[in-house]
């Protein structure tokens, strides 16, 4: 809760992401820049809400940036000015920022610089399961990973000091299960602080990565890494817990929690099983070699417990001459997030003992019990303007549907089926460029407004430049819907400071697109007409389908008064157009077509597409 996030002292209950935010506040953060993405979003969202409340006490700048690379570079600017900066993003966001990350490693941090990468083991809401600890290895940067919510706060705060002490940007890795868990956090002080402008100090020998400079900077970076490696061997967030036997357990990040409970379960059910020694690690890179070597002295083998890739396992194998067990030879699963049972099963394999429960039996039995539970797949909300847009695209004769990432990816589902490809943000326009060379069919690509600003502009400019032929529909719901309604340049809003609105149509025209039309998404007839023209147009055409996100629109109207819902009259001849071509969670069919007035938000789109004109506003009958 916001009030707990900014509380002065005591013990409070915080979401993992709020704990990371609190750590940054306690470190006296000067700037937070972010592009939203699950599971990272609440870090920046909570700092956005706290920003005006802390003004005058603890000042900092907060911006939602247009994409992760921009967020990263904004934070670089702050760091080069000697200020403390954090930028937050989901794991795939680091791919977008990677170009800046690799070079900034050479330059080095001046003010504390922390990039938070929120990974998503099990892909709860992501397109892949990449393990961003590799970025530490590849870019020669330290990577930290907390094992609990309280530790997330402590480490987030400490990251700034580490960054300044070693002159390096720090990668702070969190993941869904930690970011979206809540726990008790012991608060430290938020310092009193104003922001003062400083004079720019030129340091071209480090700040300009000319080849001649870079050649000198690379060995410097390696030296810094060597020093930090030694520091991590003494790091207070890495520790050894004594135990018995010849096999040690290395528990990384949150896996430490699983290891603790799994071991206690194994001890409770096997009288001959003794608690093994455990090395708890929160520094993931560089590998604390001395500490690991010390831990294994006297041991005959170790097992590494870590989520996603066998990262520490591989490094430990290279370091030690005793057997290192883990994912690579199947003791623990290679994919998906861990849990107590998964780790207990893995340890039981290693220690040749029994798990406290027959988890496989439990899983099988549960699957059978759940088999009659109907699925509740995510759907586009009642009144979602995207539904109307997809419906219009199909009616207008679109044939090939490159799309993008956002709520509108749900347009993949029946009956809309207007999403054929989703690769990563911005790829709708990018992929359309390539398809348009070869595919015989009318290409109608879809992209959200936030996604357009994030990474849609470059590929669209490419289409103008190379004179390609397709239609790009920008689905402008005036928000970043998918990740919790963050603002973006098209909204002209910024929770903490001044903001100006950037008009999508001006941007598109400025790029040289000649066919540009803006249509209200709920005006389906007009939308179909315009789309037909856009599809016929030779060259790249852009249609901006605009209506605020139904959730925000409905919230606004509820504040003002009642909402007019719709109902199905006797004239309905059950042609099923509203269900089989259009679709809405509020429209149900059970012998008759009906509208659930609890769910209907009164967008009137179903009424406008009903061939019988059999859907009417409810107030008419009163």
């Amino acid at each position: 809760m916001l009030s707990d996030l900014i509380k002065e002292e005591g013990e409070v209950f915080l979401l993992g992401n709020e704990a990371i935010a609190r750590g940054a506040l306690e470190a006296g953060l000067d700037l937070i820049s972010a592009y939203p993405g699950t599971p990272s979003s609440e870090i920046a969202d909570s700092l956005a809400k706290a920003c005006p409340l802390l003004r005058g006490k603890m000042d900092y700048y907060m911006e939602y940036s247009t994409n992760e690379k921009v967020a990263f570079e904004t934070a670089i600017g702050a760091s080069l000015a000697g200020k403390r900066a954090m930028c937050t993003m989901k794991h795939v966001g680091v791919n977008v920022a990677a170009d800046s990350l690799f070079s900034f490693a050479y330059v080095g941090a001046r003010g504390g610089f922390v990039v938070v990468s929120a990974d998503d083991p099990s892909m709860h809401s992501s397109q892949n399961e990449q393990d961003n600890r590799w970025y530490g290895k590849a870019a020669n940067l330290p990577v930290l990973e907390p094992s609990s919510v309280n530790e997330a706060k402590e480490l987030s705060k400490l990251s700034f000091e580490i960054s300044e002490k070693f002159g390096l940007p720090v990668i702070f890795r969190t993941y869904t299960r930690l970011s979206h868990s809540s726990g008790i956090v012991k608060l430290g002080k938020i310092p009193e602080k104003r922001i003062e402008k400083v004079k720019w100090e030129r340091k071209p020998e480090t700040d300009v990565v000319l080849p001649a400079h870079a050649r000198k900077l690379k060995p410097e970076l390696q030296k810094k890494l060597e020093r930090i490696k030694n520091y991590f061997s003494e790091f207070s967030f890495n520790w050894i817990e004594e135990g018995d036997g010849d096999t040690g357990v290395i528990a990384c990040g949150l896996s430490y929690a699983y290891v603790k409970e799994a071991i206690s379960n194994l001890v409770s059910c096997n009288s001959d099983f003794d608690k093994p020694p455990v090395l708890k690690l929160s520094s993931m890179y560089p590998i604390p070699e001395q500490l690991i070597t010390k831990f294994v002295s006297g041991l005959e083998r170790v097992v590494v417990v870590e989520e996603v890739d066998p990262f520490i396992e591989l490094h430990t194998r290279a370091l030690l001459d005793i057997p290192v067990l883990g994912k690579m030879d199947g003791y623990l699963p290679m994919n998906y997030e861990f849990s107590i049972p998964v780790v207990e099963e893995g340890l039981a394999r290693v220690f040749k003992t029994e798990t406290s429960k027959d988890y496989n039996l439990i899983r099988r039995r549960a699957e059978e019990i759940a088999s009659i539970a109907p699925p509740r797949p995510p759907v586009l909300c009642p009144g979602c303007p995207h539904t109307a847009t997809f419906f219009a695209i199909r009616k207008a004769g679109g044939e090939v549907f490159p799309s993008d990432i956002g709520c509108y990816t749900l347009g993949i589902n029946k009956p809309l089926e207007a999403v054929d490809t989703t690769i990563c943000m911005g790829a709708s326009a990018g992929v359309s460029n390539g398809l348009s060379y070869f595919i015989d069919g009318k290409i109608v690509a879809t992209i959200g407004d936030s996604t357009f600003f994030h990474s849609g502009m470059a590929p669209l400019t490419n289409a103008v430049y190379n004179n390609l032929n397709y239609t790009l529909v920008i689905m402008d719901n005036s928000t970043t819907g998918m990740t919790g309604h963050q603002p973006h340049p098209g909204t002209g809003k910024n929770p903490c400071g001044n903001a100006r609105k950037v008009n999508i149509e001006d941007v598109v025209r400025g790029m040289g697109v000649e066919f540009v039309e803006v249509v209200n998404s709920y005006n389906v007839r007009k939308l179909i007409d315009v789309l037909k023209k856009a599809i016929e147009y030779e060259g790249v055409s852009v249609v901006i389908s605009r209506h605020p996100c139904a959730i925000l629109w409905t919230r606004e109207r509820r504040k003002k008064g009642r909402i007019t819902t719709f109902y199905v009259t006797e004239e309905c001849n059950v042609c099923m157009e509203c269900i089989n071509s259009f679709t809405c969670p509020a429209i149900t069919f059970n012998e008759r077509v009906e509208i659930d007035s609890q769910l209907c938000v009164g967008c009137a789109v179903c009424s406008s597409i009903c061939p019988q004109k059999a859907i009417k506003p409810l107030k008419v009958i009163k």
Partner: protein
Amino acid sequence: MTVKEINILIAGVGGQGAITTSSILARAAMERGMNVITAETHGMAQRGGSVEVHVRMGDVYAPLIPLGSATFVVSLEAVEALRYAAYMTEKTAIILNSKTIRPRAGYPDFEEILKRLEGVAGEITVVNATTIAEKVAVPQATNVVMTGMLAKKMERFGFELQNFEDALREIFPDKLRDINLRALKAGYGAME
């Protein structure tokens, strides 16, 4: 009385307030000086999808309840409980809202739901919490009514209604406080 571990799984449908319920429980545990961790589902499951929230109290480290270890399952919607059978054992007590939210894909027979749950759990209390919420407050307070029911059940671990009332006061803004206190008490009363 020292309690080693209490695991509570809250199941429901997006918008039913499963996360708010977990916040009340967590603060009630803190009132009692207990450690507590909760884990929530976000993202794709948000709108109209199934939502599960795990609440773990006591000597625990990991956010998710281990399989076969739920002390309580609070199901804000009837069929949702079925999805979480993996967490249940013969020691699990289920509090089940008999109110249904039917997705397009159909809905099983209520008796069949109960029969299946009886096969795995130790105890099932079926109540139409939504009706109670409508009577004393608003239907949206169904989750708080069910929290009140759970509060009664948790007395055996030393919890008192007061802990939940205090928690609730912390969480809800002034204007929603009284209505939710009524819902909490009504739920508690329904279990007596």
